[in-house]
């Protein structure tokens, strides 16, 4: 690395410049391209479970409406706001590097992003899932089919399987993302990023925004499209 830095300095190039690229711009474009190929794979990864959700929603429409009505819209909406805010702070972390701000500014925005992510996960696990457990809504952990659900009741656990797998996979992506952001925050603290080189920041940003997009679809699909407008709660 030291040789590379000396070589780059000799040729008037940035320290982080890799010699196989024409220039810094090509290096940046190649990185973004590679990250989007990974995200295209992630679209298909979540697409599988979204596709299954659509099919089973068509087959067991009433059971899915009953299940959706048992979720707390308030938690879902607050978490949507928290996660979108974390996307804004992530975008600001990259912006502060692009604008040539000091590493400390980048670190501040990254830590804000992590904080908002932790708030999201706390709400999800400690409040929502805990409530679901006490209300016997977790399949395999004492799920109770209520008489009020009628004939569709037997399929309500199916909705909750989708609910826990979809929100669980989404939360897993955040749990993976948070330590990555922290590692990159350490790099930012050491002033590794500036207006020319900020690739790791940009990459983790793309990942975090992708996780945000998944939630943007999970929120309406799980919480909202359950006949909320019916006074009796769609039952």
């Amino acid at each position, binding site marked *: 690395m030291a040789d590379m830095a000396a070589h780059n300095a000799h040729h008037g190039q940035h320290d982080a410049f890799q010699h196989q690229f024409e220039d810094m711009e090509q290096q940046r474009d190649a990185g973004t391209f590679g990250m989007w190929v990974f995200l295209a794979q992630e679209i298909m990864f979540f697409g599988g479970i979204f*596709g299954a959700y659509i099919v089973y929603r068509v087959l067991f429409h009433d059971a899915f409406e009953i299940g959706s009505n048992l979720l707390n819209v308030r938690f879902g909406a607050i978490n949507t706001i928290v996660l979108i805010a974390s996307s804004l702070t992530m975008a600001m972390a990259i912006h502060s590097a692009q*604008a040539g701000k000091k590493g400390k500014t980048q670190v501040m925005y990254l830590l804000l992003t992590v904080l908002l992510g932790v708030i999201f996960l706390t709400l999800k696990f400690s409040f929502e899932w805990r409530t679901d457990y006490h209300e016997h809504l977790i399949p395999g952990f004492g799920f109770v089919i209520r008489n009020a659900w009628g004939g569709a009741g037997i399929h309500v656990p199916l909705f909750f399987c989708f609910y826990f797998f979809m929100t669980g996979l989404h939360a897993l992506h955040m749990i993976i993302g948070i330590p990555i952001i922290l590692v990159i925050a350490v790099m930012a603290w050491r002033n590794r990023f500036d207006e020319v080189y900020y690739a790791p920041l940009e990459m983790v940003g793309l990942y975090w925004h992708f996780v945000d997009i998944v939630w943007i679809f999970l929120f309406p699909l799980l919480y909202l499209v359950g006949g909320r407008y019916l006074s009796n709660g769609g039952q």
Partner: protein
Amino acid sequence: MSGHVVPVKTYVLVFLALMVLTGLTTGVAFIDLHAWNTPAALAIAVVKMLLVVLFFMHVKYSPKLTKMVVVAGFFFLSLLVAFTLADELTRNWSPRALDWSTAASVTHSPR
């Protein structure tokens, strides 16, 4: 030399638009639009996704190659959903045996 820098004002405006759309989609869910509740919720989600992809993820300012990968990703997702539904939603279009035991006996009885 550095990539396109999106102004802070744009980020804040996109964030505010996302907040308004979150409020809108939540509010609309409590109004009876008959068959249109689900399409409305999905349409708002797609608009929110586009805002995040184009501005937060800088795709609006990215090279064509990146844009192509993004479009390809969502194109293959639409294929997955479209062909799965084309199967699932049309299964009752052709006649079939009342139950599988009857179908089996019909198939095997001549032997």
